[in-house]
């Protein structure tokens, strides 16, 4: 089966409806169809958030004081019988819809652009706290085959301030050849509490992200480390000023997504996935931490830092202080302190039963600084920890 034949079944599989086994197998193994499935889930999440947003703005309406007189069934027999006339319109719309889809597939096939995505991590041992953002710096370039000297990109990693300081750097891709990526990196360590670190954090908090010109002077004396990189492998990149960065990258085409964005379409019963979650509280508050995280295992937990609300911790199993939440595909709902919370994500949140019960806990008034994180308290984030107890221990005053 090819993508064109399988495409109509993507929608049915997304809705949990039965589809031919051949289509199921194709979609399971085809990056393009899997990407389509993920896009449908993302669109569903956006529609639900829109519904919550509109419900918030709905002006009240009341029934009229005087209701009309009720009529019995006898009076309706003589009424007009409406014949559905939209069959033709429906057929045209289906043909139009299919044409649109087919046109898209054709365009996709013509436009074979590539991407290289990579992420940087400070060695895990450097983290002293259980709570930290999962969305570590990730750089993604899109380019055409044969293109060289891609635009340089900056990166900036902030670890627990008291322990590590930060690392800032610039990465430049020279070319991609024979499935190898040739690039250079300059990276420099910034001491905790230093004026340079303070200045960069201020710039980052003001503009959201640092730019290459902002880092160029700062990195002018830092040697360029050059590599001919095999995608998928882990590199240790020396940092000027001490230590190494863990680097991992991946090369792909338009039918796949970079790195951690490639989350499971349907989590197993032992997994929770939060992909681009949006939180709606009593239809009155909408927050989008962004990022994505996956957890597996009995003890592990995922969490979302929601400025003004606290840290929302989610686990597959009950833990001290947790409440039940019902998950159905990419939506979860739960009640905390007489308020209803709705969590909408771009992919299924939990696998197995529908609805499935997971456990949530809201640590009110949590501040990132509590975890030793040098993090803008107004910026939400998602993350995960291997043991929920570690997180709870860190939440104690």
């Amino acid at each position, binding site marked *: 089966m090819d993508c064109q034949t399988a495409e*109509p079944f993507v929608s049915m599989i997304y809705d949990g409806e039965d589809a031919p086994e051949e289509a199921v197998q194709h979609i399971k193994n085809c990056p393009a169809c899997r990407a389509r499935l993920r896009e449908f889930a993302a669109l569903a999440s956006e*529609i*639900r958030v829109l519904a919550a947003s509109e419900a*918030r703005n709905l002006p009240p309406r009341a029934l009229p004081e005087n209701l*009309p007189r009720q009529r019995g069934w006898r*009076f309706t027999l003589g009424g007009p019988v409406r014949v559905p006339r*939209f069959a033709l319109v429906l057929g045209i719309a*289906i043909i139009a*819809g299919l044409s649109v889809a087919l046109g898209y597939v054709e365009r996709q096939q013509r436009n074979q652009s590539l991407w290289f995505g990579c992420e940087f991590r400070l060695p895990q041992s450097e983290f002293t706290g259980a709570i930290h953002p999962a969305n570590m710096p990730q750089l993604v370039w899109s380019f055409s085959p044969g293109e060289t000297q891609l635009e340089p990109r900056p990166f900036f990693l902030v670890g627990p301030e008291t322990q590590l300081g930060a690392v800032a750097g610039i990465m430049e891709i020279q070319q991609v050849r024979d499935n190898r990526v040739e690039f250079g990196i300059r990276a420099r360590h910034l001491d905790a509490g230093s004026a340079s670190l303070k200045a960069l954090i201020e710039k980052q908090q003001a503009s959201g992200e640092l730019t290459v010109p902002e880092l160029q002077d700062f990195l002018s004396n830092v040697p360029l480390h050059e590599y001919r990189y095999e995608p998928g492998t882990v590199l240790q990149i020396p940092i000027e000023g001490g230590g190494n960065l863990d680097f991992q990258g991946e090369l792909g085409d338009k039918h796949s997504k970079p790195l951690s964005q490639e989350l499971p379409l349907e989590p197993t019963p032992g997994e929770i996935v939060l992909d681009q979650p949006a939180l709606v509280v009593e239809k009155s508050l909408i927050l989008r931490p962004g990022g994505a995280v996956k957890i597996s295992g009995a003890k592990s937990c995922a969490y979302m830092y929601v400025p003004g609300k606290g840290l929302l911790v989610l686990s597959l199993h009950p833990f001290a202080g947790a409440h039940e939440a019902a998950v159905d595909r990419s939506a979860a709902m739960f009640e905390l302190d007489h308020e209803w919370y709705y969590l909408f994500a771009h992919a299924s949140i939990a696998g197995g039963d529908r609805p499935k019960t997971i456990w949530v806990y809201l640590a009110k008034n949590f501040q990132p600084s509590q975890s030793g994180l040098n993090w803008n308290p107004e910026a939400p984030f998602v993350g995960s920890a291997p043991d929920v107890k570690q997180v709870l221990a860190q939440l104690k005053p």
Partner: protein
Amino acid sequence: MTDDRTLWQGIVKGERAAFETLFRLYSAPLRLFLRRFTRCFETADDVAQETFLQLWRRHNGFDPTRGTLKQYLFGIARKQAAHTRKEGWLPAEKETAVEAAAERVEADEHTSDVQEALARLDPEERSLLWLREVEGYSYAEMADILGVPLGTVKSKLFSARAALRHVWCNGGKV
């Protein structure tokens, strides 16, 4: 929690309290659905009101063994909205007013994008997506509400998603 059967029996007996419960439970989701279907807030609210009143006046069509009261209500509303559109109760100038009103809805950047993308779909496509993603109706329930065969729901929902995705892609969001 009032069950459908009890609520319906109350309405058939002419009990205003039962009717008010029905209105309180389903008025907001029905108005949101109709706003999506008609793209005119004023028309949507009028159709919603007329749907409730129609159900009150002619309380003879609901069969609890065939589906929920909410599903029945959505079915009447959809027919009522289609009839309204056919009879031209929605003047062209109102369409513009709709878009202006939609822009005034407080929404973040993402919801504005999806709102705009949805607005470009035809009413049936918008309705299907809304019924599925917001109201969580099954394919069979949607077929009942829209009065179309199950196969049509499957193909139409796919084309609606493909079309929405296409519009959204062109906006640079996917």
